[in-house]
């Protein structure tokens, strides 16, 4: 699928168009308002904007969707980050007595960045990605999604493509939003298997018994490993990378293998107690997701917003439908230049809806205008490549609304018992 050539110099022209006609404000508000169940939830949420020339402003907050829209259309941010829900309106934090302004709640988030895999991928490095190493993201998503749902019981997960080299996960369940720092850190550590910095060669060590979580994760890794590591990354293809792999094999196993090879004896068993899982350890070191625990730990941590634009690539941070995960192609994600261009294309076979019957009063006429403007906006992104992502986002929001309804019903049922 072609993407219009994106040039970051065009951002100042494209962003106003994007925010005026394409950014899905009503869905966005619907998300962050969470059904209006908790008072001031939206009003106390922190946003931060990165403006032209790298000017960074924090503690932005808004009373209504309209206020948010107006401000974004006014300043045309290059990047938008979402922070926590605070005890007071963030834009008034300076007026609050010191120590009482606190971050109270936020979605549980995860950030998987391809750069963290540089020591185990040979096709790219740093901010580059390609179809060969993208599988790492697929593996990461499958493992984490399963664990967050099955092990932790979370239900409302929003996976978002970051726009360049990774993915984010927003866990939006109420229980998740209320987690403490310690709880977030515990969840992140439960999900971490890769331990060690630059100075550590062997980063995964498995011991008996193998926890069910590791088994499930291994299932996923083993499914993708042959194609990904042996074929695409070709880790056994060059001496240099073979050496890297061998560095992870325990010495006594290497010795045994060597001896057996000399004696032409087929088959070996990893008998050494400590290194008995070295094959699994190697697969995990090459494929298992690498999380930045610090991103997940902090309640006040700011993370890039869905539907934000990535200034370097022009790609929109779109929600990902996991039903189509295996065919997701980061290079097919629409760029801001593409969708702006699509706006200008003549509509094929679409019919203008007849406007509503005219209403006499001024007020109603104003409302009417607003309606058609809203409808035009809906139609606007509907005719761009952004449509399917907004549609999926809608489904996600419907799911959460359904849960809220279910909770309310159960609560009222309980009360009826008395």
């Amino acid at each position: 699928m072609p993407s219009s050539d994106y040039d970051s110099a065009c951002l100042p022209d494209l962003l106003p168009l994007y925010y005026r006609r394409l950014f899905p404000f009503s869905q966005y508000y619907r998300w962050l308002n969470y059904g209006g169940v908790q008072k001031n939830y939206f009003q106390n949420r922190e946003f931060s904007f990165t403006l032209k020339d790298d000017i960074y402003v924090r503690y932005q907050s808004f009373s209504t969707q309209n206020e948010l829209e107006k401000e974004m259309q006014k300043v045309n941010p290059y990047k938008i980050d979402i922070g926590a829900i605070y005890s007071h309106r963030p834009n008034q934090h300076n007026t609050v007595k010191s120590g009482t302004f606190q971050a109270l709640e936020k979605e549980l988030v995860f950030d998987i960045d391809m750069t963290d895999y540089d020591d185990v991928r040979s096709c790219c490095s740093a901010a580059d990605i390609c179809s060969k190493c993208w599988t790492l993201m697929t593996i990461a998503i499958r493992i984490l999604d399963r664990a967050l749902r099955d092990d932790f019981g979370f239900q409302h997960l929003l996976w978002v493509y970051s726009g360049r080299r990774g993915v984010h996960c927003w866990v939006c369940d109420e229980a998740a939003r209320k987690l403490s720092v310690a709880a977030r850190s515990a969840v992140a550590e439960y999900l971490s298997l890769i331990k060690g910095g630059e100075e550590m060669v062997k980063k995964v060590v498995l011991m008996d018994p193998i926890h069910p979580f590791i088994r499930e994760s291994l299932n996923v890794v083993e499914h993708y490993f042959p194609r990904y590591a042996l074929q695409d990354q070709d880790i056994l293809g060059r001496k240099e990378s073979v050496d890297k792999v061998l560095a992870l094999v325990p010495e006594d196993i290497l010795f045994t293998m060597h001896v057996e090879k000399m004696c032409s004896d087929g088959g070996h068993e990893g008998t050494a107690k400590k290194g008995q899982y070295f094959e699994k350890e190697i697969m995990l070191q090459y494929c298992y997701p690498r999380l930045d625990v610090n991103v997940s730990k902090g309640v006040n941590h700011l993370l890039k917003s869905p539907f934000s634009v990535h200034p370097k690539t022009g790609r929109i941070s779109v929600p990902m439908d996991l039903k189509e995960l295996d065919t997701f192609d980061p290079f097919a994600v629409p760029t801001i230049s593409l969708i702006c261009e699509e706006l200008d294309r003549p509509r094929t076979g679409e019919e203008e809806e007849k406007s509503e019957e005219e209403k006499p009063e001024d007020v109603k006429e104003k409302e009417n205008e607003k309606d058609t403007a809203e409808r035009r906006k809906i139609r606007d992104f509907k005719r761009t490549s952004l449509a399917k992502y907004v549609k999926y986002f809608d489904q996600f929001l419907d799911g959460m609304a359904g849960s809220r309804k279910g909770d309310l019903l159960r609560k009222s049922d309980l009360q009826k018992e008395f």
Partner: protein
Amino acid sequence: MQFPSRRRKNNINPQTELYGHALQFYGQPPLENISLSEFETFAVDRLKLLKTIENLGVSYVKLSEQYAKKLETEFKNLNFPYRPDADDRKIQSGPSEYEKRRKDHISHFILRLAYCQTEDLRRWFIQQEVDLFRYRFNDLPPKHKLEFLHRNNLQYDTISVEEKKTLLDKLVNSSYAVSGITVEDQDFYKVPFQDALDLVRTRKVYLKAGYVYIPHQDIVTIVLNDFRTRLSKALALTARSLPAVHSDERLQPLLNHLSHAYVGQDYSIQKNVGKISLEQIDSLSGKSFPLCMRQLHQNLRESHHLRHGGRMQYGLFLKGIGLSLEQALQFWRSEFIRGKVDADKFDKAYAYGIRHMFGKEGKRADYTPYSCMKVILSNPPSQGDHHGCPFRHSDPELLKQKLQFYKVSPSGISQILELVKGMHYQLACQKYFELTHNIEEASFSLNHPNQYFIESQRVLGGGKDIKREMDTPQRSQDNAVAKGSGAAREAAANAPQGLAEMTEDLDSFFQDA
């Protein structure tokens, strides 16, 4: 789906007999009167106990045999309750079990007063009290454990026999300690994961749909979590009533001294600002920096960049040795510019962080350089990082190579590696100090990178008297305060003298530790 029912802990369940159980949650403060001298003795003894716990916790695996043995000795020496049953049979000289429990109770509450004031103090106090509690709870015979749980109303749901059967494999594979027999014999509790974070964090338990499945034998971690939360809340409350306590002149000096004693030097007050020039840093890094900082410095010079963890650890260390804010900005800037960062970007993205470290931004907290404890235990390095403690976080082979490169003798290297194997990271670093400075035995006990630097400079500067000058003025100051306030009191005539002696003892205790 189950409702997140927060079970209310009935702490209002009054113990019908005071100190009926060796262990307690410290829910109710003591209500009796005690003498000032008892007040002081109790507090100091408990502080010694907690300090021992801290030190043992770094050198040994918690609850290992050596750990337990050493701790038990300390309990005996300081007269704290530890094994109720054993005591009852023997005829003992010295305090009775009741008296020991009373001491335990009162001393805990006194230390709350001293340690509730700042975030750091609270964190330290909670950590040691939790470790203490863990040791004592573990030590209880099973019958007493159950009794404790029931007294404190910890109720979680158990799972049915059918569910146990279905989950058998998963349960057995989730924990080293759980076998098929365990599952059959013991009750398994279903606990919301938020109440069992330690088990979740280390993946020592089966987790499904947000609940952990815990055998009765492991209920201790839940209890600990509970203890920690309660203590944390209690300390926050205590902090609010502190002004009233501080207005009592008899208590203020002691409480102040107690809270400073825990950390000794924290190198937060810069004593030598501007005495170090930037040109000296390269040579200093080879001569007087501990291995962790030397490594960070080298990586900074090589790649002209350090990630956040490294910037914090190294940046604060540099602040501690006396770099001023201006120097620091110049230092980092000139290095980063050699790399991929241009001057503009540095000013926008990194300068803020450095000023933040010096307390010039944000909440204006003047951050203290990290102690060894902090470096070893928190924020472990991951991909792309060079911070942490090399003795703890490096591959042993790589560590060996590095030491060889730094010209440590082969016998020295193997001594160091032995210590690392035994998880004595600070001792390993100390050995590194001894070998690189050509001295037999270090006269100090290493617990802070800046301490390493100061000691190194001292040795290289001609071996001045090891007694630290910083402590003497503080000691005499305390004496003066104690004597001054005591002069006016008739009731506690002995106290000022006792206090002075006691604080001297305390100081020397911590110096040797």
